[in-house]
């Protein structure tokens, strides 16, 4: 039964220490995400959305609680195993996080080169993906030569390169005008229809409605979780 669960969080807590003052970013979050699901996570600034996404993305460890990804308890994993886990997760950051000295193509290739794919395979796949996100004619451009929306699409292509089990997106349309945002959301929906599990953090109510399920966060806890 848990086989279909991609993410299972039980009473997750995350406390940051600001000097001697504890900041409770998550105060007990429980969440189940099934394969093929499309979640949008809404909530005011500082409510713990990014913190939750970082935990699910195996970029950080919870202070308390249990987090199973693909049925594996993250807290039991070594540094090395966490790295392996991250290879199965596509992460799209709030601020793109592309490597500035690399072209769009090289940025997409990078995630594949990390997992040890051959140059030829990488190249072919990178070009395919960039075509899917509509950047066929921008492959040799560096991030500085691309618009915000184009950079975000490169980031999405990079996240998809290793055929991830699921896609985590932190405000994928946050810095983008509404027209580009629409393009990106239809791209995301497309991916979901092809079976990619998606968790997307957003501020935008309209965008949130495009997802299958909307999770509302408030002050470090989930205040509502509804199917659209």
């Amino acid at each position, binding site marked *: 039964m848990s086989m279909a669960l991609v993410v299972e969080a039980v009473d997750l807590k995350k406390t940051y220490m600001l000097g001697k003052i504890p900041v409770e970013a998550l105060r007990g979050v429980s969440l189940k995400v099934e394969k093929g699901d499309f979640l949008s996570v809404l909530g005011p600034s500082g409510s713990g959305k990014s913190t939750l996404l970082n935990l699910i993305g195996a*970029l950080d460890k919870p202070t308390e609680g249990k987090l199973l990804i693909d049925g594996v308890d993250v807290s039991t994993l070594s*540094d090395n195993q966490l*790295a392996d886990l*991250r290879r199965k997760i596509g992460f799209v950051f709030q601020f793109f996080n592309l490597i500035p000295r690399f072209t769009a193509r090289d940025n997409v290739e990078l995630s594949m080169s*990390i997992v*040890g794919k051959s140059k030829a395979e990488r190249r072919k796949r990178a070009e395919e993906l960039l075509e899917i996100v509509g950047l066929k004619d921008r492959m040799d451009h560096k991030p500085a030569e691309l618009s915000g929306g184009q950079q975000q699409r490169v980031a999405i292509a990079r996240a998809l390169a290793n055929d991830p089990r699921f896609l985590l997106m932190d405000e994928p349309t946050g810095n983008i005008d509404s027209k580009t945002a629409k393009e990106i959301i239809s791209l995301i929906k497309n991916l979901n229809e092809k079976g990619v599990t998606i968790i997307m953090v957003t501020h935008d109510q309209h965008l949130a409605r495009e997802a299958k399920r909307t999770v509302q966060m408030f002050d470090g806890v989930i205040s509502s979780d509804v199917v659209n």
Partner: protein
Amino acid sequence: MKILDVFAYSFSAIKLRKLRAALTTLGVVIGIAAIVALLSITQGLQATITDQLERGLAADTLIVIPGSSALGGGAGEGGGFGGGEGFGGGSTRALLYINYTSQINSLSPNIVTSLAVIQKSGYIQNGSGITRPVTSIVGVDFAQFANAFPTTFVAASGSIPTNPADNDIVVGARVSYPRLNGTLFVQAGQDVTLIWTNNTVIPFVNETYTAHISAVLDRIGGFGLGGPSDTSVYMPLSQAEKFFGTDEADMIIVKLKSSDLDVVNSTSTTITNYFGNQVSVISATAVQSLLSTIFSTVSLFLGGIAAISLLVAGIGIMNIMIVSLIERTREIGILKALGMKSRTVLHIFLTESIIIGLMGAIIGIASGWVLANVVALFLGRGGIIGSALTITPILRPEVMLGALGFGVGISVIFALYPAWRASKLKPVEALRYE
């Protein structure tokens, strides 16, 4: 991540900061160049001196001189290493007499023959009345001497008489043409005057006699350590006894059956013991081993100084690695978020330092070699050492490999800490870094 991809990634990071990388590499270049230049010059010098030694003293001969210091009785009147009647061993000095040769001959079956040599410094005056000093006036049995040094006691012009008349002499090549430019001072067939200042009487007396040059030797080179030298004059032993008024030998040359180290050493000991440690026995082997000890100490010392400059380069590498680590914190966060292992992050940073170290070492070896040759050219032009010695720098493969290994090694060692810190960065924290 594949090795080639790690390399390509590291290279792209270096390329981004070309000037900085070049300056860091320059540090390695300077250190390696200094080491290579110093070592190849000292090794070239050592080879030159060893070569000169070998020409001056055959490996199968021993030189017995009075006195008991390590290398013999110091530089006496006779010049060269050969010692002479000068100061030196003081109270422990035994005298060697010409007729000791028969006793020495019977000491060991390894001894073929031995010959006594009297040598004093003096002057030679040519037919036009011009006087020049000669390193030594040597009294020796021509036939025996030629026998002991068959390759060097060889006439270039005239011929060396086997049964010389009292006034027959043989002169070294540079006695005949001192300036090496073809201007002859004396030549075979001419009569010359030999002058020796007798300081055994007071007041000193200049003894002179007219001699006939029967031969000029082939040019030998080398120091004339016991064997024939370019700057000496040779007269029959019996004539030397009369001229110098002595039957003391300044040295006795012992010819051995072989140049085997065992034979050389055991015969040396036998002779030294026979004379109750009152004489010194010099062999080319002993001098060479002493010299190579001196040279390895000097090389080590100079190399050590040069190595310090490489340490400075290492600190430079560490410095830019730390700067680079700070600049690229966010980038490392991205790499880790994409699933790069800590080990690979470590490899990327170390590879950067290896690239810098390798480039620095290769350029350093090449420029050190050029530097060594320039310095050798300068020294060879009669700068410091004089035109007698020409140095050909030697770059031995093990020095080259050593320099390469050292350059890369230092780079890696100093990059270890920054690389380790980079590898330990936590992905979220690195990604938050501005």
